[in-house]
């Protein structure tokens, strides 16, 4: 044990000499975890959809189909990479990258639990960069996700992807606004853009923000489903109508879009608990540390609670996908601009009233 601690302290002193190393290690761990979660959420969705549809879903590769994501990845990797003659080759190759990076970059500002305390008293945070502008950063980054879709659709040189990208661009523009407004209501309650501050505020107020911002939460859910391009708003890739912006893509490039889409799902369903459901706060137990629990136990439980909340959110999204038909293009835009936007604005006023008159 002592030798281990000694080893750790040498590593630590070495790392403190080069602080960049800590960041790199954290980024590596974070990306690894995110990739694993993204890979397995594809499997989880396929199997759960199977259960909803009274079939079994993919269960042949490995026990319970657990190696299925690996097989999928391998398949995509081995497929031929086709660049259509009619396309714009540079943008065609660039578009998946544009689509790929925003959801992954967004994970950087999450805080997954209270800090871990080492025996020598040094603390380590469960975040890569818990910046002051976390929420704003997330909004900025996620608004960049559109470009991948637009460029993919246009550069394919084909009509179906063009329709897909036209639809997805106007859809994402329409739903970005209510999404941001509903998030702003939470920011208003907390008084900070930093995600860990928002969680701390929920702990301090002793209620989660979905209670005062219930309208905002519903708006957030609906518009995030639309942002994720999932049923009932899965028009950009409505497979029975226009197939989508990635019609012409194959092999690894298609896999990029696929992974980006599911990374988006993971991203949004991890953002929701932090904003509305108390993040790493353990429900019903307001403060474990008050009962004398070790801070490390608190932080481990916090990670579990965070994971459970975001899993429930993701499961709900899958359940919605299993049940509903798809909206039409014009109806979708109508809902975005004429229904959700006024509701989100009204919610802003309601939350401001609550904050002004009820919490002071």
């Amino acid at each position, binding site marked *: 044990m002592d030798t281990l601690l000694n080893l750790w302290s040498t590593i630590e002193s070495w790392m403190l000499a080069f602080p960049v190393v800590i960041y790199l290690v954290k980024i590596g761990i974070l990306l690894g975890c995110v990739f694993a979660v993204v890979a397995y959420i594809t499997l989880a969705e396929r199997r759960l959809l199977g*259960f*909803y*549809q*009274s079939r079994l879903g993919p269960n042949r590769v490995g026990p319970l189909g657990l190696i299925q994501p690996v097989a999928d990845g391998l398949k995509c990797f081995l497929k031929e990479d086709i660049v259509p003659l009619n396309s714009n080759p540079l943008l065609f190759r660039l578009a998946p990258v544009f689509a790929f990076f925003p959801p992954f970059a967004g994970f950087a500002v999450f805080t997954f639990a209270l800090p871990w305390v080492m025996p020598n008293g040094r603390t380590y945070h469960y975040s890569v960069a818990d910046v002051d502008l976390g929420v704003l950063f997330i909004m900025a980054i996620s608004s960049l996700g559109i470009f991948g879709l637009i460029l993919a659709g246009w550069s394919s040189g084909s009509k179906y992807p063009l329709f897909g990208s036209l639809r997805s661009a106007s859809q994402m523009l329409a739903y970005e606004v209510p999404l941001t407004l509903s998030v702003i209501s939470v920011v208003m309650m907390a008084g900070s853009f930093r995600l860990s501050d928002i969680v701390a505020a929920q702990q301090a107020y002793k209620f989660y923000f979905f209670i005062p911002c219930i309208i905002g939460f519903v708006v957030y859910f609906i518009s995030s489903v639309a942002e994720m391009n999932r049923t009932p708003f899965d028009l950009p890739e409505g497979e029975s109508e226009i197939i989508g912006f990635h019609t012409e893509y194959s092999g690894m490039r298609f896999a990029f879009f696929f992974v980006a889409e599911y990374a988006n799902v993971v991203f949004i369903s991890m953002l929701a608990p932090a904003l509305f459901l108390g993040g790493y706060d353990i429900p019903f137990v307001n403060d474990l540390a008050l009962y004398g629990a070790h801070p490390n136990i608190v932080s481990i439980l916090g990670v579990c609670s965070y994971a459970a909340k975001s899993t429930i959110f993701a499961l709900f999204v899958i359940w*919605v996908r*299993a*049940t*509903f038909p798809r909206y039409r293009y014009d109806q979708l835009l109508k809902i975005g601009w004429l229904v959700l936007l006024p509701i989100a604005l009204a919610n802003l006023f309601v939350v401001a009233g609550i904050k002004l008159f009820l919490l002071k």
Partner: protein
Amino acid sequence: MEAISKFIRMITFPELFKGMAVTAKYFFQRKVTEQYPDQKTILPYRTKGKLHVDIDKCISLCRFCEKVCPEGCIKVFPPPKELAKTDKRPVEFYINQEHCLHCGMCVDSCSTGAIHHSDEYELVVIDFKELLGDKETLPYDMIKKHYRWNYLENVPVKIKDSPLKEEEKSQ
């Protein structure tokens, strides 16, 4: 009043939650997937599988099966006339199983019951020539290899003592 209840219904999505309850109900019910190569389907007695011919029963001269086949995939070569008086069995009997529609009209038309469907339904082959049945490959040993399955009672029944068999003979 009605307008209010309509408005409440509009903002609380009751019908959407009802739909979700339906899918949730099926989530917990038994799944219907049959995992094919591990878990083979229980076939009913009347399944029309690959055609088989009991060459000994065939009287070959009528050639009803050949005439009635819509795809023309059966070819019967009866023996020469002087031989046919003693031994009516065909000299050669070809069935192109690749073209067979499994319509069962040859079985209907056969007066001696020489041609019949088996329960072999896995007709995937690498070389299509494997599906060209001739006198050597068409006969099939029912008792040795295959069981008939009584679908409706879900009990495996050997062909010899199948109740359905007797019932059908009487018809």
